[in-house]
C-alpha cells in the first residue's frame, strides 16, 4: 500500500502533535552562506549548541565569484557573508567545503557527488532546490531560516505530511529532448502552483531510463510547480551512481544499505492524491516565454494568447517585461547571452551534452556565453576531458564553480533588457539581474542558441 514517499516519511516521524503536525527527523542538513547566518545568530542568542554536528555539511555557493576564486572576494557584502559562514562553521564545528576547497560547489551538486545524498534519507537545506536530492529516493526539501535554526538545535522540523502526487512520463523522448525539456513540459501543463501542497513521485519508462543527472534535473524543478519536493524510486542506476563515492557506505554496510533501498519503491497497489501521465514522444524541446517557469512552450510554438493557468493581466505583465507579444513565435529570435550552469544543469553530463554540440563551432558574434560548472569536482572532470577547451575555443568563458548567473547574487548578471537563454530554473523578473530577460532551456537548446545567435530547434541540428 505505501508509496516511496510514505515509507521514507513514516520512518522519520519522531512524534505526532495534536492538530496534524509531525516532528520529522532530518538525517542530513546542508547549509550555505545566505540562509544560515541568522540561524547561527539565533543559536547564540539562545545559548544553544548544534544538536548533531556530524549531520551538517556547509559550502559557499550563492555569493562566490566565478572568476579569480583564489583571491579574496571583491564585493564587500558577499565577502562578509562568506567569511561569516567560515567563522560560524569554525565556532560550531561544522564541516565546511568553502571557497578553495576541492569539494566546494553548489550545495545540490556536491551532496550527490560526495555520496552524502542517499536513498531513504531525509534532507533539508535553506534553499528551495533541495528537491534535487529526491532523485535518489530521498525526501529532500527547502526550508526557511527559522527552520534551519530548528534543525541545528533539534535535528527536526515540524510539518504536516504533504499530499502525494505521481507524474508518469512514458515512452521514448524525441532525439534532442532532454530531462530539462520533460520537466519544463510538465510544469507548463500544471502551472507554477500546480503541485502546491504535494510531494511528487516521478515514474514511467522515460524517467526510469534517465541517468542520475537527468533525474536530478527533473527533481530539481519540482519546486517550480509549487511542489514541496520530488522523488524517484531508487534502482540499479541509483546504486551504481552512489557506489564508491567519498561518503558512500562500503563493504557489509553497503550490502545492508542496498537491501534496504530495494524495499523503498512504491507498492503496486499504492494510491496517490493526484496522478498525471504524459507521453514522452509528445514532448518537444522546450523554452519559456514569460516570467515564471510555468510559462513554457515547445520551441517552434507560438506564445499562447489565452491560458487556463495564467490570468490575462499576469500574461500581459509578463509580455511587457519580456518585450514579447502574445501570439508570436520565438524561434529565430536573436538572443544576447547564454548561461550554462546552476543546480539544474551544471553537472558533467550537462557540460558534455552542450560541448558535443558546440565542438568545432564558434558562438555567434552577438552572443556572450558563460559556462559555470556546478562544483570544483565537476570543473576538474570537465577539464580532464578537455571540455573546457571545447568551450573556450568556441568563444565561451569557462568559469569556477558556484550559483552564478542563476540568481545574480555575485557579479555574474545579465544586463537589463537583454535576452539570456539559460539552463537554470527560474525566469522570474530580475532573477538574473535587474531587467534581465531569461529564457529557460536545456543545455542542448542553450548551446544551439549560442552558436546560431538565436532561438533554434535542436531537432534540426543533431
Amino acid at each position: 500500500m505505501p508509496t516511496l514517499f510514505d515509507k521514507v516519511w513514516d520512518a522519520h516521524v519522531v512524534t505526532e502533535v495534536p492538530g496534524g503536525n509531525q516532528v520529522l527527523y532530518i538525517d542530513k542538513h546542508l547549509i550555505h552562506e545566505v540562509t544560515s547566518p541568522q540561524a547561527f545568530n539565533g543559536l547564540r542568542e539562545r545559548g544553544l549548541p548544534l544538536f548533531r554536528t556530524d549531520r551538517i555539511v556547509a559550502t559557499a555557493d550563492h555569493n562566490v565569484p566565478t572568476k579569480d576564486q583564489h583571491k579574496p572576494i571583491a564585493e564587500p557584502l558577499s565577502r562578509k557573508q562568506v567569511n561569516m559562514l567560515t567563522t560560524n562553521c569554525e565556532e560550531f564545528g561544522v564541516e565546511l567545503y568553502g571557497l578553495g576547497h576541492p569539494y566546494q560547489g553548489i550545495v545540490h551538486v556536491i551532496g550527490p557527488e560526495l555520496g552524502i545524498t542517499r536513498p531513504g534519507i531525509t534532507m533539508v537545506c535553506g534553499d528551495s532546490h533541495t528537491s534535487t536530492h529526491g532523485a535518489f529516493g530521498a525526501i529532500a526539501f527547502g526550508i526557511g531560516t527559522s527552520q534551519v535554526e530548528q534543525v541545528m538545535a533539534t535535528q527536526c522540523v515540524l510539518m504536516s505530511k504533504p499530499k502525494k502526487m505521481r507524474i508518469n512520463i512514458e515512452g521514448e523522448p524525441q532525439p534532442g529532448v532532454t530531462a530539462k525539456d520533460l520537466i519544463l513540459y510538465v510544469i507548463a501543463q500544471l502551472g507554477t502552483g500546480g503541485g502546491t501542497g504535494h510531494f511528487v513521485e516521478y515514474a514511467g519508462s522515460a524517467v526510469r531510463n534517465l541517468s542520475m543527472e537527468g533525474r536530478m534535473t527533473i527533481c530539481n524543478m519540482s519546486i517550480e510547480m509549487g511542489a514541496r519536493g520530488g522523488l524517484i524510486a531508487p534502482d540499479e542506476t541509483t546504486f551504481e551512481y552512489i557506489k564508491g563515492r567519498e561518503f558512500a557506505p562500503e563493504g557489509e554496510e553497503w550490502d545492508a544499505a542496498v537491501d534496504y533501498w530495494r524495499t523503498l519503491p512504491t507498492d503496486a497497489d499504492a494510491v496517490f492524491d493526484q496522478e498525471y501521465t504524459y507521453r514522452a514522444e509528445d514532448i518537444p524541446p522546450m523554452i519559456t516565454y514569460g516570467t515564471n517557469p510555468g510559462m513554457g512552450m515547445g520551441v517552434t510554438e507560438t506564445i499562447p494568447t489565452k491560458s487556463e493557468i495564467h490570468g490575462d493581466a499576469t500574461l500581459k505583465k509578463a509580455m511587457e517585461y519580456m518585450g514579447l507579444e502574445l501570439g508570436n513565435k520565438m524561434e529565430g529570435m536573436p538572443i544576447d547571452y547564454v548561461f550554462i550552469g546552476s543546480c539544474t544543469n551544471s553537472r558533467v553530463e550537462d557540460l558534455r551534452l552542450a560541448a558535443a554540440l558546440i565542438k568545432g563551432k564558434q558562438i555567434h558574434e552577438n552572443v556572450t556565453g558563460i559556462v559555470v560548472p556546478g562544483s570544483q569536482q565537476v570543473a576538474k572532470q570537465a577539464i580532464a576531458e578537455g571540455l573546457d577547451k571545447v568551450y573556450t575555443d568556441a568563444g565561451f568563458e569557462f568559469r569556477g564553480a558556484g550559483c552564478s548567473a542563476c540568481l545574480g547574487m555575485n557579479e555574474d548578471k545579465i544586463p537589463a533588457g537583454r535576452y539570456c537563454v539559460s539552463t537554470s530554473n527560474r525566469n522570474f523578473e530580475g532573477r538574473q539581474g535587474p531587467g534581465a530577460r531569461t529564457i529557460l532551456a536545456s543545455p542542448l537548446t542553450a548551446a544551439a542558441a549560442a552558436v546560431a545567435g538565436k532561438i533554434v530547434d535542436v531537432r534540426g541540428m543533431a
Partner: protein
Amino acid sequence: MKPLKTLTSTAVPLPIEDIDTDQIIPARFLKSVTRDGFGDNLFRDWRYDKLEHPRPDFVLNNPTYSGEILVAGANFGCGSSREHAAWALADYGFRVVVSSYFADIFRGNALNNGLLPLIVSPEVLDETFRTIEAKPAARFTVDLEAQTFKNEETGTVTGFEIDEYKKTCLLNGYDDIDFLLSQQDKIEAYESNRVEH
C-alpha cells in the same frame, strides 16, 4: 514572535498571480546577516526604477492605499525559500497577507514570523479586490481566535482554516523551536531505536 489576535485595517491590493519571492525581495538584498531592515527593499524592483525613483504606478507608492493587510493574487510567495521575503513583509508593517493560496515554504516562513497567510476562496479574494477598488478606505477585520475575515464595507464574514498548533503559536507568539526543544527526550529515543542505512 509578535502575537497576533485580532486586527482591523485598511488593505493594500496587489491583484497579480504567482508573485514570487524574488519580487518580494530580490536576491541582491539577501546579503545581510541579520533579520532586520528588509522592509526598505520590499518589492524593490516594482517600487523603484533604475534610478532609484519611486514608480508612481506601484501600489506601495500610492498614498491612497495603506494598511497592515496585503491582498494578493493566487500562489503568493512561490519560488525561493528565502525567509527574507517574510521578514521584508513584516518589517514593512504587514501582519496579514490574504490570497486564495500560498506557496508552501512561504506559508511556513510567514507563520514562523507572526505574519498570517490567510487563505480565502477565489470568489472572496475577487470580492475583496472589488471592495478595495471601489473604496480604498474600506476596512477588514481578521479575528484569529474565531478564524474569521470580515469585510467591514459589505459586512461579509468568511471563515478561514489554520491548524490548531499554528494558531496557538500565533495567538501567543510561541516559536516552533521552543516546542521542538521540549521534545528532546523523544528525539533522542527515536535516534537510539532506529537502524540507519
